[in-house]
C-alpha cells in the first residue's frame, strides 16, 4: 500500500493540464472530488468534508454536499430575558448542499466560488432544551445560506489545496470564516 501511494505521488506530473482544453478534458473524465475542510476564525473552528460532482466540465460547474462540525464545546452567551442569560458550551453541526464554479487560470491555479443552503444544528453540554427558573434554553438552529469563494492550488492531478472565505449563518457566533481545504479530484 505504501509503495503504491509513493509511486502515485512521485510519478505524477507536476504539469497535469497543459492548457484550458486539457483542463476541461480532465474535469470531464474525473468528475469526483473530495475535500477535507477547516473553516475557522478567532476562537472558533470547524472540521468537515465535501464531496463535489462535476456537472458541466466545459464550464467547470459542479454540485457539492458538505458536512461541518465544531469539535469542541464553544462557550456562548444566550439572552433569555431582561437581565437573564445562559452561558453554554455549544457543539454546532452544519449539513449543506450547493453549486460551485471554478475559473481556470493556469496549470496550478483556479478561482472558485459557490453557494448553497445548509441546515445548522446545535447540541449543548449538560442540557437539551431545559427550562431554568422559568427561562427556556432556546436552540438556535435552522436553515442558513452558504457562500464561499477563494483560490485553489493544484500540486498535481489529484492533490490540491484551497484557501478563501466562507459565509454561513452560525446563529450564535460570527458568520464569516476563513476557509482552508485539502483534497483531490479523481
Amino acid at each position, binding site marked *: 500500500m505504501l509503495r503504491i501511494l509513493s509511486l502515485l505521488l*512521485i510519478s505524477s506530473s*507536476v504539469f497535469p493540464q497543459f492548457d484550458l482544453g486539457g483542463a476541461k478534458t480532465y474535469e470531464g473524465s474525473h468528475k469526483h472530488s473530495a475535500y477535507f475542510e477547516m473553516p475557522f476564525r478567532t476562537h472558533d473552528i470547524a472540521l468537515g468534508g465535501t464531496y463535489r460532482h462535476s456537472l458541466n466540465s466545459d464550464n467547470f460547474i459542479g454540485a457539492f454536499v458538505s458536512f461541518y462540525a465544531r469539535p469542541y464545546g464553544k462557550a456562548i452567551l444566550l439572552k433569555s430575558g*431582561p437581565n437573564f*442569560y445562559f452561558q453554554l458550551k455549544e457543539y454546532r453541526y452544519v449539513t449543506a448542499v450547493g453549486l460551485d464554479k471554478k475559473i481556470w487560470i493556469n496549470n496550478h491555479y483556479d478561482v472558485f466560488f459557490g453557494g448553497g443552503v445548509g441546515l445548522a444544528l446545535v447540541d449543548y*453540554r449538560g*442540557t437539551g432544551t431545559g427550562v*431554568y*427558573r422559568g427561562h427556556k434554553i432556546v436552540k438556535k438552529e435552522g436553515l442558513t445560506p452558504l457562500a464561499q469563494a477563494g483560490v485553489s492550488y493544484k*500540486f*498535481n492531478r489529484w492533490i490540491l489545496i484551497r484557501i478563501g472565505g466562507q459565509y454561513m449563518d452560525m446563529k450564535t457566533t460570527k458568520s464569516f470564516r476563513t476557509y482552508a481545504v485539502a483534497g483531490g479530484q479523481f
Partner: protein
Amino acid sequence: MKKRERLFVICSFVLLGVLFFSACQILSESDDECDTRPSNCLESKPGMGTLEVSCTINSKNPSVPIAIYRGDFEKNDLVLRDTLSGSGKSYTVPTDQYYSVVAEYRRGNGDTVIAIDGDDVDFSRNDYCEGPCYESDPGEIDVRLLFPKVASEAGRTKFMTKARHY
C-alpha cells in the same frame, strides 16, 4: 529544480513520512508482544470517579451556588447542591455516568448568568500481559464566568436569543 517542483517533492516526502510512521505504529500494535502491568494498576473498575468543577470567584461573586445533576439538568436528578468559595472543587461520584452542573452568577449591572456544562465520569481501560488496568478519566466541568462584561460591552447582542418566559 524549479521552486514549485521542489515544493511538491517536499510535500510528497512529508506525506510519505506520515504514512511510514503510521504504518510502523500499526505494525507494532499488531505484534504479539505486550507490556507488563504497572505496579499502581487498578485491576478492577472502581465504582466511584472524580468530577472536577471549575468556577469564577470575583468581587460580585465571592461564593457561587452550584447544583450537580445526573444526566442533563432538566431531568432534575439532583446529586447535590454546594456553594463554592474557591476556584474549583473535586467531587467523588458514581462512575459510568454523565453529569451536568449549573452555576449561578451575578454581573455588575444586575444581570444573572446561569453557566451550564456537562461531562462523563468514567475509567479508561488499558490491556497488559497480566490483564487490564483501569485509569481514571475524570469529568471536567467548566462553569467559570466566561462573559463577565455586559452584553453591549461584549459586542454580542446580535447573537442573543429573544426573551422567552415559561
